[in-house]
């Protein structure tokens, strides 16, 4: 598919003017192409016999995609060379061999242009880091000098992981994290038989960083209420089968809980805030994160505009996010921008937990396990379905008044369900 105009990225085959087996002369039109900007005939760059049509009429393909094959004259018969006819992708601009997410996908020109691309080694104009095998263990960058001074680390004799043995900032940070060396001048003793070093994955490291930050920066208070969800339990029993049948979703209490959370936040909007750029931003839309435990770590995908959804919508959104979280198919936008987090700790059997605020958010609520318990109703003892609801919040942002008010509102709403 040729590039018929700047900024055009795809084209549609309107009509094939040649069919397989037809003789083709140089510059003879092969087909008609339509793009957002122009409609044009595609002249042949080869003389020969038309081979296979690769893109049928009406189909849209990216610039550079092969459209048909042509057996070039002089190559002799059907066994001759059949160049894949992509026209010259005028952009000449290759997506290359790297994997690209589909929404950023650049039409990758097929065939010859890719080879042309490979002929150019990456240009590195200007003075950059020059790598030579010389010993660089005594060259210290500004960052390394500063960190060494701040932490009283003797750089003498230390060998780094950088080019030429240079001590990198990460080497110093690792040294700081591991504490002072056991015996100066000797590497710390390790014993593979006694333990193994657990390497953090990128996900685990991000979780660790966020939780440390939350715990260090935000003074967090914790509070809990117990809620009678007997009505909700009955409703769920009643609706379970319909949800399975009509939506194909296994209905849990979480969507109801999330809906009630959204309504309660409506009364106490300060809970729907984030610390950003040194200021506290109270968000208008409810972007509710739902914690999902997967075998590759905890992820918190976000239900965008949760405040505008009903229970069925929430159930569907939660099921979809949870499924994609397990399959590792969450997109960046699925995990970004959360303004409040709901944690379903009851799934693990917990009856009380103290979640850490999902920084930069300011509050997190957990729904614990629903258990049948004898409770006093009026002057009698009854067996009711009870659940504890726990809230951790950033005490800088709000006091017990708002936090308690939010939980009371949530409790009232959950107990009001019948």
């Amino acid at each position: 598919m040729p590039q018929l105009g700047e900024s055009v990225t795809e084209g549609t085959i309107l009509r094939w003017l040649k069919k397989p087996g037809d003789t083709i002369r140089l510059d003879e039109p092969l087909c008609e192409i339509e793009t957002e900007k122009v409609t044009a005939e595609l002249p042949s760059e080869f003389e020969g016999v038309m081979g296979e049509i690769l893109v049928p009429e009406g189909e849209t393909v990216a610039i550079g995609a092969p459209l048909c094959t042509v057996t070039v004259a002089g190559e002799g018969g059907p066994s001759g060379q059949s160049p894949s006819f992509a026209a010259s992708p005028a952009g000449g601009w290759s997506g290359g061999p790297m994997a690209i997410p589909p929404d950023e996908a650049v039409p990758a020109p097929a065939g010859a242009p890719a080879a042309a691309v490979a002929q150019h080694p990456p240009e590195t104009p200007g003075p950059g880091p020059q790598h030579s095998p010389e010993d660089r263990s005594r060259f210290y960058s500004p960052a390394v000098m500063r960190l060494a001074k701040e932490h009283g680390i003797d750089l003498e004799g230390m060998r780094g992981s950088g080019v030429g043995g240079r001590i990198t900032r990460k080497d110093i940070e690792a040294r700081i994290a591991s504490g002072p060396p056991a015996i100066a001048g000797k590497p710390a003793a390790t014993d593979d038989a006694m333990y193994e070093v657990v390497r953090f994955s990128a996900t685990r490291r991000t979780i660790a960083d966020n939780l440390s930050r939350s715990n260090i920066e935000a003074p967090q208070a914790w509070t809990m209420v117990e809620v009678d969800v007997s009505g909700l339990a009955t409703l769920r029993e009643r609706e379970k089968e319909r949800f399975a049948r009509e939506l194909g979703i296994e209905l849990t209490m979480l969507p109801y809980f999330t809906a009630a959370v959204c309504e309660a936040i409506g009364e106490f909007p300060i809970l729907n805030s984030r610390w950003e750029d040194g200021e506290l931003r109270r968000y208008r839309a409810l972007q509710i994160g739902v914690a999902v435990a997967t075998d590759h770590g905890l992820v918190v995908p976000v239900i965008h505009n949760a405040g505008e959804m009903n229970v069925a919508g929430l159930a569907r959104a939660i099921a979809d996010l949870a499924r994609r979280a397990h399959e590792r198919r969450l997109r960046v936008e699925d995990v970004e921008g959360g303004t409040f987090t709901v944690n379903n700790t009851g799934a693990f059997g917990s009856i009380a937990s103290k979640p850490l605020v999902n920084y930069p958010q300011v509050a997190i609520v957990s729904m614990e396990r629903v258990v049948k318990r004898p409770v006093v109703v009026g002057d009698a003892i009854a067996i009711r379905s009870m659940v504890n609801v726990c809230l951790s919040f950033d005490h800088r942002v709000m006091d017990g008044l708002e936090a308690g008010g939010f939980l009371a509102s949530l409790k009232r709403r959950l107990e009001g369900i019948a």
Partner: protein
Amino acid sequence: MAEMTVIEAIRTTLDEEMGRDSRIFILGEDVEAGGVFRATEGLVAKYPGRVIDSPLAESSIIGVAIGAAHYGLRPVAEIQFADFIHAAFDHLCSEASRWSYRTRGDACLPMVVRTPWGGGVHGGQHHSQSIEAYYTHLPGIKVVAPSFPADYRSLLKAALADLNPVLFLEHKRTYRLIRQDVANAPAETVIGRARIARKGTDLTIYAYGLMLHESLAAAAALASEGIEATVVDLLTLQPLDVETILESARATGKALIVHEDTLTGGFGGELAALIAEHAFEHLDAPIRRLCAPDIPAMPYHPNMEHFFMPDREKIAAAARDLAAY
């Protein structure tokens, strides 16, 4: 809302804002017919008399816009290709950028100059230029260079609401290449703010326009090799979001600046100087610039164009070097 291309983001925003504010009008070459990139398509029928074809004279387009802004209108001047804007440099430099300063802030000059810039479209010498370095040197003009459709929308709205001249740079290669679900995009942004488009620990890549997308693609590929790059989408080139730029440089200690403009005197020099000046003690490697070589103009032949432009492979290679340093 469905996914939107960059060109649709621009067109819908112009439409919405013209509907909201009757002072806004568009002038430029062929804008009545929709412009060569179809950015103003359909607007003349909807807003008769407010989408005006100009002569092929860029200094006149900008001069008329300045005059109209003096009279209380909100002109949107379209320069068909950024390559042509230099004919109007004197108006922008000596008049537009200084008006507020000359009047000690008594008067303002609200005007937006929209123009498609950048290469990778086989546009040759006269349809591929990067012009940001000339105009970011003018303290009285704001220069915006978004990358994603939602940011085009919020920054074009912000530009139209701004009381200062805003040069709004639209990367023509991304017009129909980049799509985004704008309803579920990150929060609206404002002029003067950068965004961390991706967070990593090994190095920080600074980019804008097409190179931002190339940098993100390079970062995604590097992640599979265990190199995690932060990618900063600069969004506004003047005034710069100094805080975000420095914070992200301090966090990784390694900075890679990417732009498709030529190296010497390019905008990357400003970023490099800023980082060296204010984040020196946090640097763990020399600041690295990946730019087009110092060649007079973007070549036409595909292979030569490819040689000239930075892309994801070149960015990944430079990042690998820097990470290993």
